[in-house]
């Protein structure tokens, strides 16, 4: 269980990025965080990842306070952030340094295949397209099998087809180990397609405006959930519009 309890974040320059965030994400739950630009979504993930500390309140994973990066929590940044001096395969294996080489190779190969980049394994990041780089970053986070995955708009640089493929793939990966997923997105359709719950944030200071349960439409039985899904989309879009 990942919990935020009255979490606030004020940056050193006085920017109040978050105020009074209280939120629990159950093990294995997929929660989408949606909201306009600058409303604090990235800040929520950075705090959960232990990269920054909250100015007030506390974040816990299964009772353990998160104050610095945690082995059970993986993060995909909003930008790919590949290390330019490592090949694609080396980037994916970057976090596996403490595992035996053979296991590392096998895991990297599997992760690359799963984002359909097996053939790019030996290339430099500079030679990949933006979407390919983003997929490498996703593979890099998944390869370590974290309990909690924080994804910051991981699909924003992808075309519609690849995006839909990665959605399916994300759900397939999720089905294997059932990690908790906190997914930031701008895209209501994406939230509805992937998440059990969508949380709408409002800006200045960032806070939670509404939480909608989406569960009926997933796991995917596309036909059955269709009506419920479009109703949810409408509700989400309405509450997004309501946010100033």
């Amino acid at each position: 269980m990942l919990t935020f309890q009255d979490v606030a974040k004020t940056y050193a320059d006085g920017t109040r990025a978050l105020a009074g965030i209280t939120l629990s994400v159950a093990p294995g739950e997929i929660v989408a965080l949606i909201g306009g630009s600058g409303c604090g979504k990235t800040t929520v993930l950075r705090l959960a990842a232990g990269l920054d500390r909250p100015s007030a309140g506390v974040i816990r994973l299964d009772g353990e306070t998160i104050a610095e990066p945690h082995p059970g929590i993986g993060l995909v940044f909003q930008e790919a952030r590949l290390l330019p001096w490592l090949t694609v395969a080396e980037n994916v294996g970057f976090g596996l340094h403490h595992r035996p080489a053979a296991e590392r190779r096998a895991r990297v190969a599997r992760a690359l295949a799963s984002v359909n980049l097996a053939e790019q394994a030996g290339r430099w990041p500079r030679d990949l397209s933006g979407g390919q780089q983003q997929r490498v970053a996703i593979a890099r986070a998944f390869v370590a099998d974290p309990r909690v995955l924080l994804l910051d708009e991981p699909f924003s640089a992808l075309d519609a087809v690849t995006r839909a493929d990665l959605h399916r793939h994300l759900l397939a990966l999720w089905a294997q180990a059932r990690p908790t997923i906190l997914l930031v997105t701008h895209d209501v359709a994406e939230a509805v397609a992937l998440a059990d719950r969508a949380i709408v944030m409002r800006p200045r200071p960032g806070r939670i405006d509404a939480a909608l349960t989406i569960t009926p439409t997933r796991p995917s039985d596309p036909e059955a959930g269709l009506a419920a899904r479009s109703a949810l989309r409408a509700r989400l879009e309405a509450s997004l519009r309501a946010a100033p």
Partner: protein
Amino acid sequence: MALLGLNETARPAVESPSPSGARRGSGPGRIRRLVLGLLLPLVLALGWEWAVRAGLASGRLLPPPGRILAALAGLAASGDLWVHVQATLLRVAAGFALGASLGIGAGALTGILPLARHLLDPGLQALRAVPSLAWVPLFILWLGILETPKVVLIAVGVFFPVYVGVSGAIASVDRKLVEVGRIFRLSKPALARRILLPAILPATLVALRTGLGLGFLFVVAAELMGASEGLGYLLVEGQQFGKPDQILAAIIAFALLGKAADTLLVVLTQPLLRWQDVARDVL
């Protein structure tokens, strides 16, 4: 499990091999540029050679290329050239090794530890403002006129660009990449080795190149202050005995040596930088 594909399968695998090779300037364009660059110096040199041979100029103060090359060949044939080249190279190598390692050490220290930066950097920046040649009399006074002051002078010349380059490179390492290391919970030493070091490598190598260039600049100054061998000695002797062809021969040797050393440094370090996304097509 669904594999994602479309946009990948459309991309031929042929595209991937040898990314660096394809980036180089194309062959014909390169040769054309080389010819263009050589054109003017060649015309001037041949013109001067012709003017002296035709008796239009004496060539006493500015000997024609033929005589300079003859002087160079003479020095080479007698074996003197190698003695002088060796002496100069040894000094540059010793001074460069000393200056570069101190520069890297001090740059790393001030780049990583704020305390060291506040303690050392202002003083070093003040020293850097002193034109290095101004130290010469002091070095001679302190260290005599043999090898030590020469090596120290060269080391001083090499130190500053390397120091500034390394500390600047560390200060400007992308925080975003450091965070990647933090997310994967690298220890401090691992962070330094796996993120910091590769990140500062390009700037460090540029600084080393600059330092090496300055090393050759300062070896001339060092050898002018009194030496019994070395290319700088050939300069002094050429001046004293009125042999401009020898001076020019030594200058050419300096130029070739400097270029060769720089090229060697680039060639040796290039494998470390294959990953760089740069449009570098000249050395």
